[in-house]
């Protein structure tokens, strides 16, 4: 009876974090949700944004909660999450490192920066370190192309990054 790799102990964020769940509940209740599923669907993406802000990621329990509130099917919610790269159903590290791979950063050497992060963190793109401290990903242009190549760590933007600075960025994350 195993549906995922959680080995029996299924984390249920909705039950585990009642305060966050209450916030999400209040957010959704404040929206104009009705019986019309098509109309409700129009609120889905903003609900998922809010849920991901609160919980950090969108595991099945959270998906089910949102689906129930909006009277949608779980599969619809999952379909949306898997389509948009902003949403994730896997936990992310405390520091979310995103290397900009927009064109301006690409021509200024973003690939080498990404490789250096991979090498130093010993993870691939889209992965999280086993201690859940770092996640590595890419994004396409934060609009600071004059500072290319750009790396974002959570909300902080680092500009004119060189392979040498990569180690410093990592050690700055305590």
């Amino acid at each position, binding site marked *: 009876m195993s549906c995922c790799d959680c080995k029996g102990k299924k984390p249920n964020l909705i039950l585990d974090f009642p305060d966050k769940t209450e916030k999400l509940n209040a957010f959704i209740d404040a929206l104009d949700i009705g019986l019309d599923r098509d109309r409700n669907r129009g609120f889905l993406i*903003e609900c998922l944004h809010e849920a991901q802000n609160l919980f950090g990621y969108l595991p099945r329990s959270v998906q089910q909660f949102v689906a129930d509130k909006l009277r949608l099917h779980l599969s619809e919610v999952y379909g949306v999450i898997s389509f948009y790269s902003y949403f994730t159903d896997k936990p992310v590290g405390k520091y979310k490192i995103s290397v900009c791979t927009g064109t*301006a950063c690409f021509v200024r050497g973003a690939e080498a920066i990404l490789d250096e992060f991979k090498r130093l963190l010993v993870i691939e793109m889209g992965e999280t370190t086993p201690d859940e401290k770092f996640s590595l990903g890419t994004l396409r242009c934060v*609009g600071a192309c004059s500072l290319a190549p750009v790396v974002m760590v959570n909300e902080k933007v680092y500009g004119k990054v060189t392979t040498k600075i990569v180690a410093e960025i990592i050690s700055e994350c305590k």
Partner: protein
Amino acid sequence: MIDSVETLKQRVEALKKEGTAATRILISMGTCGIAAGAVPVLEELKRVLAERQLEDKVEIIEAGCIGQCYAEPSVEICNAGSGSVIYGGVKVHDVGLIVSHIEDLAPDMNTVEKTWYYPETEKNTRNKIQARIVLRNSGRIDPEKLEDYLKNEGYQALAKALTEMTSEDVIKEITESGLRGRGGGGFPTGMKWNFAAQQPAGRKYMICNADEGDPGAFMDRAVLEGDPHAVLEAMAIGGYAIGADTGIIYIRAEYPLAVKRLKIAIKQAEENGLLGDNIFGSGFNFKIQLKYGAGAFVCGEETALIHSIEGKRGEPTFKPPFPAVSGLWGKPTVVNNVETYANIPAIIRSGAKWFRTIGTEKSPGTKVFALAGKVENVGLVEVPMGTKLRDIIFGLGGGIRDGKEFKAVQTGGPSGGCLKYDRLDTGIDYESLAAIGSMMGSGGMIVMDEDDCMVNVAKYFLDFTLDESCGKCTPCRIGNTRLHEMLERICEGKATMDIITKLKNLSYAIKDTALCGLGQTSPNPVLSTLANFEDEYLAHITDKHCPAGVCTKLITFKINDNCVGCTLCARNCPVSCISGERKEKHHIDQDKCIKCGVCYQACKFHAIDKL
């Protein structure tokens, strides 16, 4: 509350009477400015002004982006007496000096040529290139203050449209101006509005496409961060023209600052009666909502965008029906780009005739480009249509960085093409760029130099397309995968000559059969690099050589006899694969070398060859 044209007038007069401080300090607080360190500079500025008790004499304006991103953080001092000066690359410790000299403007510091946004006042020939319509307020006003916008003719166009013009008049004015969509397609805006206006009365929607997905383009961001009210005003004008009472701005989640400023602007406009019911007492109602994207490039395509607002997966659908007939929730919907909207108030205020004096016959007006890549001055430029690529890259852009050789310029993002030097004298507009195998696109302009491998660039764009393809139709989903594999084989030196024909055939097949604009244009980077840089493809295929020295599978680093054994390379190599005794020739273990090129850059004796 501004409930009539009369109260608007009084409000503006009152604001103008208040006058401005003797000295105004403008600091660029766009995303780029903040990333470059504008916040600590601003704090220091406030501290120093307080310390020297100058707060009453000096007004600080937290403005948007002036476009000179290369000089951030930048601070401009405007002095009623002695003119103005812009300091670039300002550090916290420079602030004291700047403030000491607000009168005489003479500190010995890095000042920035005012070539980028002072077209009216400077005699310099370079700045004659620019003309600011879209960016007229960006970097000049505080985007979080409605008053600043009002002082600069804000909401005058909406007032004029609602009280002096009929909906038909508005559409006629926009049609006559010849304004074309700045989101990429170049479709005449007046015509689009007319389609929607002719649909039976009822629910209609006015959507602003602020998804700006082209990686490396940031024009829309600058407008939204620097002049958000202009977009709101334009959407209301459009709503009046087509008979819509609801506007929706679809904005990408990666632009938190733009979202914040839009929220503030919408709230201000509502509180002052500039959005809401019975605007200017005309009986016209209009409200605007924000909807967020979630990181999908294809959602910039208008049908996909509409699906995304409806809460679905952002997959495009076949057109017709066009959104103007059946769009959001099946209702007539106009989707326009941010920059398109930003032109509207100016056209209504100054008229179609004036607009037509700028730009070319078929493409009137200006275009904002995000100039980036290997140019000296990275930033936003707004130039009349028809301006030559050369004037932008070598004039405003200041030429190529580090004295390197220009190789290519890429316009149109992942849908566009790479052009070489023989096209630099092309005057840019929609038709001319399409004729030479590129595209206007939304305004990304990436400059490349001799160090860029054009095969690798084509591969990069296909990487992007593959990542962003929604997977709905086969030519795009599978065709682009095959194209990408072929390019990979070329970059690895495993391809044979027949691959060129295969690349071309498959490219044309994808162009002809893909469902939406993403797939239909995705082979453009391949076709344009093939057309302009075929020799580079051939070098990879026949000589197994990457002329730019980028494709790692095709290069090796070797130490030659110039080596003096300084050990610098060995100390810098990230994988420690360089060995050798001090003062003796060093050696690279090729099996371990990851070809990062660090040693090549480190060596001061030209002792490392890149082959």
